């Protein structure tokens, strides 16, 4: 029998047994919805994790001077990290991909023209800062070696990316960042502005990507998000403001990327040795690698992913059992028909095909309707601010429909075999 005829006959059967079809259809539909949701979520999570690792660097080490609130802080220690420690690391290990010293200060920002005043976070950096975590679009130029050497009074302003589609909750819960509002509405590039009591020239503006696409919004290192970057040398020489460092020449820390995950341990060891040789001891520093920081966050995300995946699999599995159950019931109500078809020349494989096609068609139709509902649900969640849902891709619909059809296929093989193996003579006698 031709496939087109089998499909036609299957559609007739589906139409005729409305309740039975609806039940299988319904369970498959739920399975498909959860598969689309699961795929979107897992895809989003794995994409963001890999993006976060890629952006932040695979061999990332962070060194900071211990603070009073750290567990093993030593009151008597007078040692602290300074810019020369960073230079020494750079000089001793030129093969390191990045050695980026940084220092944070909380200072007053003032624009004479618009009379806008606000306290802002400023980070002193070197050009190596841009080697990792670079997610920005740069307007103008970045801080360069000349600026560091000459303690130039230049700065780069960071502008937040906002949202592609603002989630509803943000309208109620998020306070407005006045500085960001100001940056958004004023062209700062080339302008002279006051930071602390000093005039700095804005030589660049870094535009962040929208929140939904920003890997830093998913997994970040540290909580300090500066508004303005200036050369670290200029900061130490001119800038007054609130800082965690008591000494003027102290820096907050050094970010290092060895370039490879495998070399992290080795460099942790040799850099500690270097600092020991420079300062007499290395007890005053905290050294953490990024993988350590990520590990906890990733474990959480992976657990979420596994949970959702299991729910999806259970749902589609339940759909499969539904189809199998319904197909078996259908066989016993169609024994006579099977006998007649066999007498008229249907082979065992014709009978098998008939039942398998019916189930696959049910899977397909359930898949289509489930996909429509699934995509609608994802759009709804997106509008409610679920940023994972933005990672939805159309191939997921295709995958879900294929999974539904495959479920129909697998679930119907056994019932179809039972039907095909029925004795035609006995089946004809069946009433």
């Amino acid at each position, binding site marked *: 029998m031709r496939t087109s005829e089998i499909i036609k006959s299957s559609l007739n059967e589906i139409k*005729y047994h409305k309740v039975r079809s609806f039940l299988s259809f319904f369970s498959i539909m739920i399975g498909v919805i959860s598969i689309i949701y699961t795929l979107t979520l897992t895809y989003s999570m794995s994409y963001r994790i890999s993006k976060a690792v890629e952006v932040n660097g695979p061999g990332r080490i962070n060194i900071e001077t211990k603070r009073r609130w750290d567990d093993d802080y030593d009151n008597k220690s007078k040692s602290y990290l300074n810019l020369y420690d960073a230079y020494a690391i750079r000089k001793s290990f030129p093969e390191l991909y990045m050695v980026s010293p940084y220092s944070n200060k909380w200072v007053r920002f003032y624009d004479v023209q618009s009379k806008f005043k606000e306290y802002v976070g400023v980070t002193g950096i070197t050009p190596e800062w841009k080697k990792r975590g670079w997610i920005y679009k740069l307007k103008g130029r970045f801080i360069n070696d000349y600026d560091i050497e000459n303690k130039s009074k230049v700065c780069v302003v960071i502008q937040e990316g906002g949202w592609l589609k603002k989630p509803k909750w943000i309208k109620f819960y998020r306070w407005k960042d006045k500085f960001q509002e100001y940056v958004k509405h004023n062209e700062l590039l080339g302008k002279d502005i006051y930071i602390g009591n000093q005039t700095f020239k804005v030589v660049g503006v870094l535009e962040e990507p929208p929140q939904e696409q920003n890997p830093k919004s998913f997994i970040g290192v540290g909580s300090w998000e500066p508004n303005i970057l200036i050369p670290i040398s200029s900061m130490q020489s001119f800038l007054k403001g609130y800082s965690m460092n008591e000494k003027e020449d102290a820096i907050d820390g050094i970010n290092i990327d060895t370039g490879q995950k495998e070399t992290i341990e080795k460099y942790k060891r040799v850099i500690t040795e270097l600092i020991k040789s420079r300062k007499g001891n290395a007890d005053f520093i905290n050294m953490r690698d990024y993988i350590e920081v990520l590990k906890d966050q990733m474990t959480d995300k992976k657990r979420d992913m596994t949970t959702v995946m299991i729910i999806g699999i259970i749902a589609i599995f339940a759909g499969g059992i539904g189809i199998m159950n319904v197909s078996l019931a259908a066989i016993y109500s169609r024994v006579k028909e099977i006998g007649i078809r066999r007498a008229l020349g*249907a*082979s*065992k494989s014709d009978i098998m095909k008939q039942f398998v096609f019916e189930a696959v068609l049910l899977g397909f139709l359930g898949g289509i309707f489930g996909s429509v509902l699934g995509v609608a649900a994802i759009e709804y969640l997106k509008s409610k601010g679920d940023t994972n849902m933005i990672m939805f891709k159309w191939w997921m619909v295709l995958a879900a429909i294929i999974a539904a059809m495959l479920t129909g296929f697998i679930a119907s093989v056994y019932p179809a075999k039972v039907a095909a193996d029925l004795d035609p*003579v006995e089946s*004809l006698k069946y009433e």
Partner: protein
Amino acid sequence: MIKLENITKNYRFGGGYYQALKGVNLEIKEGEFICLLGPSGCGKSTLLNITGFLDAPSGGKYLFKNENVSNFSDYKRTVIRRKEIGFIFQSFNLLPRLSALENIILPALYLNTDKKRAVEKAKKLAEWLNISEKTKNSIIELSGGEKQRVAIARALINSPSVLLADEPTGNLDSKNAMEVVEILKNLNKKENMTILMVTHDISVSKIADRIIKIKDGKIDENF
């Protein structure tokens, strides 16, 4: 055309076997009309099913068009059945969810005949059997006589060489029964169709060239 030699058929029954056919010898020539008579449970339907390749014999030799088909697999029996055999049943055995026309062309679809050609042929058969007006009707809208005509058209759609009828008049009133008998007679005389018919009804059996009586799974030689 058909030669059965010492055909037996055993069925499992409880712990042992029940022998439905106990060594049947029968030869049917092309164009012959044979009637199988006998009481219920004597084995005539079993014989019909084996002849029509619905069932395989437990023992003996079955020659169909000079080919030994006794040990054919299920698939081979299916292929030969769909090409060579037309079945007519007492209870019509039409599929209720299909229209009359769809029922008629069903065996042709299993033979992979082009659907257009099958429909054309079905319409000709329907015309010949006086059911042209009813081809689009659902089976439940047809009378008993009409149903059996649809079943006859269905049996003929693949131009089989043998027609097997299992009590084709059993569910019909006498008028319709006679019409069906007339159709079968015509088929045999005009189209030279080989027919093997099972019946209880001695008056119906009279149209046959030969009447064979089955008794206790054997041909009653004394009949």
